[in-house]
């Protein structure tokens, strides 16, 4: 006889599986099955397929030997490194001073600059690329203008164009991470250096910059990974300059059903590079982290007018270039177009023409994104709880796997899911389910991270109190943990939504005609040269991406650093 049954008010007990095994063990098992099935098995399958014996030599490494012996193939790897490393260098060179000026100098329009950086950051890269083609392509508006006055501009196509677009697209990583790095440095550090006789630049170089090393290296590697895995931009701008993701896409979807074996080998190569970069990033941040926390963060300094003007000019020039493609999209969506040639007269034609075609892709996009976001919020919060509150081997495995999902590029995940789920009993290719599951697993880290950092700040006592009062683990999670995490869950969901709705590379691999999305439609219109329609669709997509962020920043009071 238990003590409890003696009391007048016996405690309720949970039912079903949870009753036999406990609530959290059951949840942990479900989460593990999902993650293993959607991430680890597909990745393992790609590796397995890539190692299937070749026809010529019978060696399991034949695909890799082929790759490294044919210039047509291995040149793409070199090209990928080339554009990604240059984009990384330029993004750091532009992003660090921009962040320093915006956070330390009294430049004008600081709020506008921050909003512009966010807008650039969340806008789909492929929209930026084709917008540059509209402006500076062969028949581009500005190209023709400059030709007419006798100036010939450098080409937007090929390696230089890709580096240019990647730099402008991804420098916000550097800007945002360095900004938050600057906020974690105490003003006393600078004051002490200045007091000891250091000039401003010397202080930055010897006292501030060393503390920013983790922010700079992290953001640099994020720029590198984003550039290395981007598919839309090199397809639109690359022409004969081919990078690895473009090669994978070509091998996978072209030619009579494609060549999944070679595409798998290429995917493994891509994944190795991104995983390596992520491990390097973790090692560097751990190595150079000083775990500072600012009681009084670095303050804005008063500067002589000249410096103020120069800093403002630099920042606005950068922001101007970064925003130009977006402004161009919105403006050109209201212009008459004749294929790739835009005419300077106002019209709503483009919107009228997309109206009848947008219903299905828009519905698909909203549906997939919403379901995936909800899955992320629910499963991500549960994973965060397991990571923070139930430490142990399973918990650290989950933590590692969620981090690993950062490293898996969309195109690799797409290939992996197709390779894994194209046969019964799990024939999911071509269905909405596979796209939703792909979105879910790719964007899971947003929700997990958001809830983890909040959960670490909530005392465990609050949940213990609930358990102590007789509520089981499931009830405690629903009645106490989730309400306390509400803002973190919501902001994680808004970020997930905003990042999912513009997903292109995995969708390109996974979509069939009926499961097309707005991003895919834009991409198709661009490839077909219908810039007017693409612009109208692009404007819609930019709005959908930006709306949740407006909620995030205004209602939830988040800072733009939450994006990275």
């Amino acid at each position, binding site marked *: *006889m*238990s*003590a*409890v049954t*003696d*009391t*007048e*008010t*016996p*405690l*309720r*007990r949970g039912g079903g599986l949870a009753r036999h095994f406990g609530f959290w063990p059951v949840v942990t098992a479900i989460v593990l099955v999902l993650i293993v099935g959607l991430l680890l098995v597909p990745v393992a399958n790609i590796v397995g397929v890539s190692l299937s014996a070749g026809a010529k030599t019978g060696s399991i490494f034949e695909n890799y030997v082929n790759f490294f012996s044919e210039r047509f193939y291995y040149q793409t790897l070199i090209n990928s490194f080339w554009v990604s490393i240059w984009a990384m260098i330029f993004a750091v060179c532009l992003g660090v001073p921009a962040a320093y000026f915006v956070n330390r100098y009294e430049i004008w329009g600081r709020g506008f600059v921050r909003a512009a950086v966010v807008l650039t950051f969340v806008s789909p890269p492929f929209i930026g690329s084709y917008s540059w083609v509209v402006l500076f392509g062969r028949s581009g508006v500005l190209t023709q203008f400059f030709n007419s006055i006798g100036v010939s501009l450098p080409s937007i196509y090929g390696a230089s164009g890709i580096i240019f677009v990647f730099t402008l697209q991804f420098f916000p990583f550097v800007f945002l991470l360095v900004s938050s790095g600057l906020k974690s440095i105490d003003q006393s550090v600078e004051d002490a250096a200045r007091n000891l006789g250091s000039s401003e630049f010397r202080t930055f170089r010897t006292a501030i910059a060393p503390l920013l090393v983790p922010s700079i290296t992290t953001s640099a590697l994020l720029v590198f990974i984003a550039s290395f895995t981007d598919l839309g931009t090199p397809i639109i701008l690359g022409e004969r300059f081919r990078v690895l993701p473009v090669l994978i896409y070509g091998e996978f979807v072209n030619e009579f059903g494609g060549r999944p074996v070679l595409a798998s080998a290429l995917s493994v190569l891509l994944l190795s590079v991104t995983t390596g970069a992520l491990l390097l990033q973790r090692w560097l941040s751990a190595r150079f982290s000083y775990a500072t926390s600012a009681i009084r963060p670095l303050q804005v300094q008063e500067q002589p007018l000249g410096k103020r003007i120069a800093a403002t000019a630099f920042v606005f020039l950068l922001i101007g270039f970064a925003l130009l493609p977006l402004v161009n999209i919105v403006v050109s969506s209201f212009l008459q177009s004749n294929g790739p040639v835009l005419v300077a007269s106002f019209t709503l034609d483009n919107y009228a023409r997309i109206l009848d075609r947008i219903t299905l892709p828009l519905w698909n996009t909203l549906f997939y994104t919403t379901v995936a976001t909800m899955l992320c919020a629910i499963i991500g919060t549960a994973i965060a709880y397991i990571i923070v509150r139930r430490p142990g081997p399973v918990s650290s495995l989950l933590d590692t796997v969620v981090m690993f999902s950062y490293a898996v590029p969309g195109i690799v995940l797409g290939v992996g899911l197709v390779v894994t789920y194209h046969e019964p009993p799990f024939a999911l290719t071509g269905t909405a389910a596979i796209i939703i599951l792909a979105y879910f697993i790719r964007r899971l880290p947003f929700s997990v991270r958001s809830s983890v950092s909040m959960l670490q700040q909530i*005392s465990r*006592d*609050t949940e*213990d*109190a*609930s*358990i*102590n*009062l*007789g*509520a*089981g*683990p499931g*009830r*405690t999670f629903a*009645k*106490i943990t989730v*309400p*306390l995490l*509400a803002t973190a869950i919501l902001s994680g969901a808004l970020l997930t939504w905003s990042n999912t709705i513009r997903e292109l590379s995995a969708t390109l691999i996974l979509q069939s005609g009926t499961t097309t999305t707005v991003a895919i439609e834009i991409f198709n219109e661009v490839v077909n040269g219908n810039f007017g329609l693409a612009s109208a669709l692009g404007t819609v997509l930019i709005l959908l991406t930006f709306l949740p962020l407006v909620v995030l920043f205004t209602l939830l009071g988040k800072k733009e650093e939450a994006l990275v």
Partner: protein
Amino acid sequence: MASTSVHIDQVTKRYGDSIAVDGVSLDIAKGEFFTLLGSSGCGKTTLLRIIAGFLKQTSGRILFGNSCIDDLAPQHRNTGMVFQSYAIFPHLSVVDNIAYGLRARGLKAAEVKQKVDTYLALTRLSHLGHRKPRELSGGQQQRVVLARAMVIEPDVLLMDEPLSNLDTEMRMHLRTEIRALQRKIGVTTIYVTHDQEEALLMSDRIAVMRGGRLEQVASPHDIYNKPSTRFVASFIGENNFLPAVHRGNAEAGFVRIELPGGQFTAKLRGELPQGALEAAFRPQDIELRPLDGDGDGLVGTLTDIQFLGGTVRYAIDLGGGHLVQVAGASRTGVMLPEIGTRHRLGLSPAAIALFAPEAA
């Protein structure tokens, strides 16, 4: 009332090589206010969390009444716990906080309301029922979690340093309030604190813990006046310690001991420890006498006077590196002695306790 006695039987908790609770056995009577007292890291909170079920003991058993609770999940133990951090549910109103445990037990709304109202009144929170926790003061929040823990009519009320986050005045006030409420409800209470004044004031019995073990379990009066170990003598209240040598027995129950600077008669409390000895005596048990008197007594020089209003503290140097603290009442019209004068220290035999010295 569902309250019960608690029996802790040889409970041990290990973390790898370190031992947090070391073979603790306790019997706590129904309705008793029992305090676990010790400095941080002594194992008192660990023991409390084992009783609540948040930690599982490595070995040993715990019984509520006659039934063993070791295999019960924490939510099924029917204990009410009050946390140091309050652990108030910040998103729920005062009423919903208090009703939480009742609703988890599936009580009907009318019953919930009636019980909640009772406890709102008992903790004088009736006018604040619909406030959110952030609108309450620290003391009010503490009363909410107290009501929340008591309203479920727990077998045992567990309190983990509930007053340590409050300011002094509120702490003083709540001590008496908690004690009065506990008496009225009659719930068995295990109270954890590091504050000896709190423990002495509130408890029926105190267990002094150190390094995971029980040093002494006794009433507040006995803990203070009859410390059974040197540690308890030094931990509770203030004591002077001097090395002592056994110089033979006096009449039955008394021994002669030699302290630096003089011989004394001490009353025996139990067995006399073998080997080296230490004598302990409290500052307020010493009488400062003029040097010309006679009889037992240490002789030393007054080196410092601290005037604290109602009491005066004297530091007496006995020579040889031995310093003794003396506390006396300050009386109107009585002159304080001068620094540098020599005095004789008088001690009654019952005021001296003898211990084996602490191993270093």
